[in-house]
């Protein structure tokens, strides 16, 4: 029992050390800008533009549900224009970033871990090194940078979509006028709501892509190992998103 705890503690410390070493290597490879700059644009398209449909789909239905649940909860005790407040605040501060983050952890994190894992087990990563490329500057930095830069953009669109569907729902199903919805939306709005959500999503983007890269490049074995890495990347990313969500709430709210 004590031995098992000891082994787990040592392996946890080793894992933290490996992550630290990985991040240090990544920072050092930033000097190789000639390699990663062009590739980052490609990844920004893959991570950002290609993720938009999933994020917007989720945000659209979240906006509808939020408006209906707000109206159901208020039940006449609270003025109905507070639906706008609740939809706006919740989308900006919490559900926009977190739901998009969780969805993209599955889409981006898993595919990244699987792609890099396949490259690892088929020796493509070794081949890259023998061609004098640093996998950090060729594979990792473009992905992490693209994730960090593009997640806030995707989330911004998701927030806007959620608010628009919340407004449309209020208009069509709740008999709330546009003026009232906007009145509610503006009621407790502060600019911090926006940058808080976007900062959070940048940290989610960084985390999801970094985890995808670390897990992917650490893949061992064949197809089974690649499958394990994809699952692991999603699980670790989802856990870290929730932890980061709480962290930012404690630190910034």
């Amino acid at each position, binding site marked *: 029992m004590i031995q098992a705890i000891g082994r787990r503690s040592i392996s946890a410390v080793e894992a933290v050390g490996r992550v630290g070493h990985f991040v240090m290597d990544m920072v*050092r490879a930033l000097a190789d800008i000639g390699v990663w700059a062009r590739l980052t644009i490609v990844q920004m398209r893959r991570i950002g533009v290609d993720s938009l449909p999933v994020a917007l789909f989720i945000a659209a239905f979240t906006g509808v549900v939020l408006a209906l649940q707000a109206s159901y909860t208020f039940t006449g005790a609270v003025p109905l224009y507070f639906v706008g407040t609740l939809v706006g605040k919740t989308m900006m501060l919490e559900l926009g970033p977190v739901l998009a983050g969780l969805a993209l952890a599955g889409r981006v994190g898993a595919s990244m871990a699987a792609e890099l894992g396949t*490259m690892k087990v*088929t*020796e*493509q990563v*070794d*081949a*890259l*090194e*023998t*061609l*004098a*490329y*640093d996998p950090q500057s060729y594979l990792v930095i473009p992905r992490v940078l693209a994730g960090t830069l593009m997640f806030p953009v995707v989330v911004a669109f998701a927030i806007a979509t959620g608010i628009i569907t919340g407004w449309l729902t209020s208009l069509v199903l709740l008999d709330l006028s546009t003026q009232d919805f906007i009145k509610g939306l503006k009621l407790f709005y502060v600019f911090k709501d926006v940058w808080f959500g976007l900062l959070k999503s940048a940290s989610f983007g960084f985390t999801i892509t970094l985890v995808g890269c670390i897990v992917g490049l650490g893949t061992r074995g064949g197809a089974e190992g690649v499958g394990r890495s994809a699952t692991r990347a999603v699980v670790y990313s989802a856990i870290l998103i929730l932890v980061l969500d709480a962290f930012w709430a404690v630190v910034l709210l």
Partner: protein
Amino acid sequence: MIEFQDLQKAFGEKPVLQGFSLKVRDAETMVIIGYSGSGKSVALKHIVGLLHPDVGDVIVDGQAVSTLDRDGLTLLRQGVGYVFQFAALFDSMTVADNLALGLRRRGLDEAEIEERVQEALALVDLSGTGERMPAELSGGMRKRVGIARAIALRPRYILYDEPTTGLDPVTSAVIDRLMVRTREHLGVTGVVVTHDMRSAYTVGDRIAMLYEGRVRQVGSVAEIQQTEDPVVRQFIEGRAE
């Protein structure tokens, strides 16, 4: 010159190389033979720093590989072509882009890259396949593209990891002829890891047998063919006992 100096490497509890020492002279092709899992590929990967030795080192052109920093390793790797066992082609790129990638790293202009790509593809009899994707190629063609990717760099050294494994006898012979032609054409020093004895006799100037983590015997093709060492004899004759 490449020199393995008392190389030792273990993976977990399992020792693979246990004092592997061998000199590869300039402009020769050294073939390392041995049983599957004997550590041949592990030894090869130490030459370009893909693996780090537990003890000992590999000396390439007077430099100890394990002591090189990243820039030093990059310089070393720019002089080495590596042909992987399963070719390790980048499956998201065309054949031409696979060949061009290493050349772009060396800062060549696009016209020269194009010229070198076409020349390397011609050398492996694959002219006209530049726009195809690796998934569209047969196993033998993929290996030839792997060789073309290495020779396009015009390296001082070419390392071949099991170049004929998994290929039919005719395609194996084509690959062997290609390796010989590459050496004659470019005058490079080669290290070939294989357990295919026909290939070893065809391409090798000297042959070294790796057994239980060390060199069991090293000698010319004729010396190995006439060996009286029972372990080497059994291996080269492919006898079960």
